[in-house]
C-alpha cells in the first residue's frame, strides 16, 4: 500500500490536478444548489470533458462533482425550502425554519461542516475497507460473481420505484442495450445491423446523457416551468453575529448527530440501490428519537440539519466501496463513475488494486483533497450560491441541452452518438413519466458486459447443471437473497393490489 503513496501523491499534488478537483467541487456545488438539477446530470455532462485528463485527475474531478452536489443541495433546501436534490428533503425540516428565524448562516454552516465530516468519515471507511474486500473478492469465481450481479439488479429493482416489475423490466432493457457490438466470446458482430458505429456497442454517454440529462430537461419543460421559476426569494439575513456563526460549543453539541448521520450514510451507501434519500431520513429519525427534546425537531433544530447532511454526504464515498472492491455499482452516480473508470482504461473490481494500485491511491488522495475543497468552496462560496439559486430555468435549461449535444458528440460517436442521445432522451422522458426506474436501467447497462461474461462462464463451467451451486455457498446465498427480494416485493405488489381493490369497492359502496 505504502509503495503506491509517493507516486500517487506526485500525480495528484500538481497545480493542474488540484485546480480540476476544486473546479469539480465548485461545479457540483452549483448544480446541487440549483433546484431541479442533480449531480448525476452534472457527472454525465462532465465525463466527455475528462477524456484528455490523467485518469486520477479525471476521476477525482468527477468524484468532486459528486461530493459537491451532495453538499450543495442543502443550500436551496435551507434558503428556499426547496431541496436541490431529493436527499435534502429532510434538511428543509429544520434548515428552513432556521432561515425564517434569521439563522440562515448558522444553518448553512451546520450543513457544510456536517457534510464535510460525513464525507471524510466515509472516505476513510472506503480507504480502509475497499482493499480487504477486494482481496476477498479475488477468490470469487464466475458463478459467485454472476449470482452477486443477479442479486444487485433484483435488489435495486426491489427498492427503486413503486413497481418491482417495471423496475425489473427497466433493468432487463438496460442489460439488453449492452448486447449490440462484437460478441465477447465468439468475436462475431451482434445486433449491429451493418452499422460500424455499433461495433463497439452503444456509447455509454449517449445512454447516460440522454436518459439522465436530456429527459430531465424534457420533464422540467413539461412541468410548466415557463418564464422562470416561482420560488420565493430567501428571507433577508440580517441576523446578529451569534446567530450567524457556529461556536465551538455548538459544534461539539452537534458531534453525536454528525456521527450518527455518518454511520447511517456509510451503511446505507454500501448497499445497492438504497440511496442518500433513505440515509438522510433514517439518520434524522435516529437523531430525533434519541434526542432529549424531540419536540424541537421540525422547528429549527440544528441537529436535524447535521444528521441529514452528514448522512447524505457519507453515502457518496461509501457507495464507491462496492465499485472499487467488486466492480458493482449500486446507484446512478456510481454507475456513471464506473463507466468513466472504464473509459479511462481502468477495470473496477477486485483486480483494480493489483493492476492500477497507483491510480487507486491517487484517487484516494484526490478524494481527500476534494473533502478539503468542499470546506473551502462551502465557506467562501455561500454568497455566490445564494445568488446562483435565483438564476432562471429559461437560462439554465437551454445551455444544458446544448451541453448534452456536445457531450454525446465528444465520446467519439460523432453525430450518430448525438442522435442516439436524443432517442434515449425521448425514451427516458416516458420512462420517468411511467415510473420505469432509470436507476436499474443505467446500472443494468453498465453491468451488462460483466453479467454476460460471468453468466456464460458459469454455464460452461457447470455444464448447465444447477446442482453445482451446492459447492458454491456464496453464490447460493446471493441467489437466495435475490429470490427473497423478488418474493418479498412481489408479495408487496399483490397486497397493495388487494388493498387498492378493497378500497375501490369500499368507495363504490359509500
Amino acid at each position, binding site marked *: 500500500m505504502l509503495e503506491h503513496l509517493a507516486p500517487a501523491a506526485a500525480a495528484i499534488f500538481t497545480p493542474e490536478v488540484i485546480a480540476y478537483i476544486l473546479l469539480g467541487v465548485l461545479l457540483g456545488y452549483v448544480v446541487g444548489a440549483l433546484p431541479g438539477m442533480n449531480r448525476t446530470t452534472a457527472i454525465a455532462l462532465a465525463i466527455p*470533458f475528462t477524456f*484528455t485528463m490523467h485518469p486520477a485527475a479525471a476521476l477525482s474531478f468527477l468524484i468532486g462533482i459528486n461530493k459537491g452536489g451532495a453538499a450543495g443541495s442543502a443550500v436551496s433546501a435551507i434558503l428556499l425550502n426547496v431541496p436541490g436534490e431529493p436527499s435534502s428533503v429532510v434538511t428543509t425540516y429544520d434548515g428552513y425554519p432556521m432561515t425564517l428565524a434569521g439563522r440562515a448562516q448558522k444553518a448553512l454552516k451546520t450543513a457544510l461542516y456536517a457534510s464535510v465530516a460525513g464525507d471524510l468519515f466515509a472516505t476513510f471507511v472506503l480507504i480502509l475497507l475497499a482493499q480487504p474486500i477486494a482481496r476477498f473478492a479475488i477468490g470469487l469465481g464466475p458463478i459467485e460473481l454472476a449470482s452477486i450481479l443477479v442479486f444487485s439488479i433484483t435488489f435495486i429493482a426491489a427498492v427503486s420505484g413503486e*413497481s418491482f*416489475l*417495471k423496475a*425489473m*423490466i427497466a433493468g*432487463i432493457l438496460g442489460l*439488453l442495450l449492452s*448486447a*449490440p457490438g462484437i*460478441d465477447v*466470446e*465468439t468475436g*462475431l*458482430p*451482434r*445486433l*449491429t445491423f451493418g452499422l460500424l458505429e455499433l461495433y463497439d456497442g452503444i456509447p455509454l454517454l449517449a445512454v447516460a446523457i440522454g436518459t439522465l440529462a436530456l429527459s430531465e*430537461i*424534457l420533464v422540467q*419543460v*413539461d412541468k*410548466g*416551468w*415557463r*418564464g422562470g421559476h416561482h420560488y420565493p426569494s430567501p428571507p433577508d439575513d440580517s441576523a446578529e453575529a451569534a446567530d450567524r456563526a457556529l461556536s465551538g460549543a455548538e459544534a461539539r453539541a452537534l458531534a453525536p448527530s454528525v456521527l450518527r448521520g455518518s454511520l447511517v450514510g456509510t451503511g446505507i451507501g454500501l448497499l445497492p440501490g438504497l440511496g442518500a434519500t433513505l440515509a438522510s431520513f433514517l439518520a434524522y429519525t435516529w437523531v430525533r428519537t434519541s434526542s432529549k427534546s424531540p419536540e424541537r425537531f421540525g422547528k429549527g433544530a440544528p441537529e436535524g440539519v447535521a444528521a441529514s447532511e452528514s448522512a447524505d454526504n457519507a453515502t457518496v464515498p461509501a457507495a464507491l466501496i462496492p465499485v472499487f472492491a467488486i466492480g458493482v455499482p449500486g446507484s446512478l452516480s456510481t454507475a456513471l463513475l464506473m463507466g468513466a473508470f472504464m473509459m479511462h482504461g481502468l477495470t473496477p473490481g477486485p483486480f483494480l488494486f493489483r493492476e492500477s494500485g497507483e491510480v487507486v491511491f491517487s484517487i484516494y488522495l484526490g478524494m481527500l483533497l476534494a473533502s478539503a475543497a468542499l470546506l473551502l468552496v462551502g465557506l467562501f462560496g455561500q454568497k455566490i450560491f445564494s445568488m446562483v439559486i435565483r438564476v*432562471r*430555468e*429559461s*437560462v439554465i435549461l*437551454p*445551455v444544458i*441541452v*446544448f*451541453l448534452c*449535444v*456536445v457531450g454525446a458528440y*465528444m465520446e*467519439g460517436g*460523432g*453525430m450518430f452518438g*448525438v*442522435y442516439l442521445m*436524443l432517442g434515449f432522451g*425521448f425514451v427516458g422522458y416516458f420512462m420517468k*413519466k*411511467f*415510473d420505469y426506474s432509470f436507476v436499474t436501467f443505467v446500472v443494468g447497462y453498465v453491468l451488462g458486459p460483466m453479467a454476460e461474461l460471468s*453468466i*456464460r462462464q458459469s454455464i*460452461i463451467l457447470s455444464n448447465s447443471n444447477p446442482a453445482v451451486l451446492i459447492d458454491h455457498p456464496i453464490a447460493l446465498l446471493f441467489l437466495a437473497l435475490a429470490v427473497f427480494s423478488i418474493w418479498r416485493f412481489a408479495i408487496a*405488489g399483490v397486497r397493495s*393490489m388487494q388493498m*387498492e*381493490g378493497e378500497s*375501490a*369497492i369500499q*368507495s*363504490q359502496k359509500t
Partner: protein
Amino acid sequence: MNRADLVGGAGLTAAGLLLIFVIIPLGTEEGMYFGLAPTFFPTLLASCLTLAATALTLQAWLRLKKERGRRPGPIERWNVMMFGLAAALALGGVMMIDVFGMLIGGPVLIAAFMLFLGERHPVRILVTSVLPVLVVYVLALHVLGAPVP
C-alpha cells in the same frame, strides 16, 4: 397508471417476442464458434423481458378490473404537446448543428429553447446563446483537444 401499465406491458411483451423470433436471429451474424451462441445472452434477456412484461400486463389488467371509474394517467394531452414541441426543437437544433456546425447551430438551439421557455429579454438571449458556445468551443479545441461538432 394501470391503463398505461396495461398498454406498456402489452407493448413490451410484443417487443420481447419480436426480439426473440425476429430481431436477434436476423441481427446476429452466423459463423464458427465454440461454447454458447452469440445469440444466447440477448435471447435469455428477451425471454426475461417477455415474462416480466406479461406479468405486468396481467397485474395491470387485474387492477383495472377492480378499479371503478377512470383515474387520470401520468400523461395528459398538454404534456404530450409540450413534449412534442420540446423534442421537435431539440431535433431541429441538432440537425442545425449537424449541417452548419456548432458555432452556428449551437446559439440557434439555445436561443430557440430560451424563447420556448418564455424568455423574452433580447440581451439575455443573445449572451446566453453565444457565450456558452464560445466557451465550450475554446475549451474543447484549444484546452482539451477534443472534437466538437
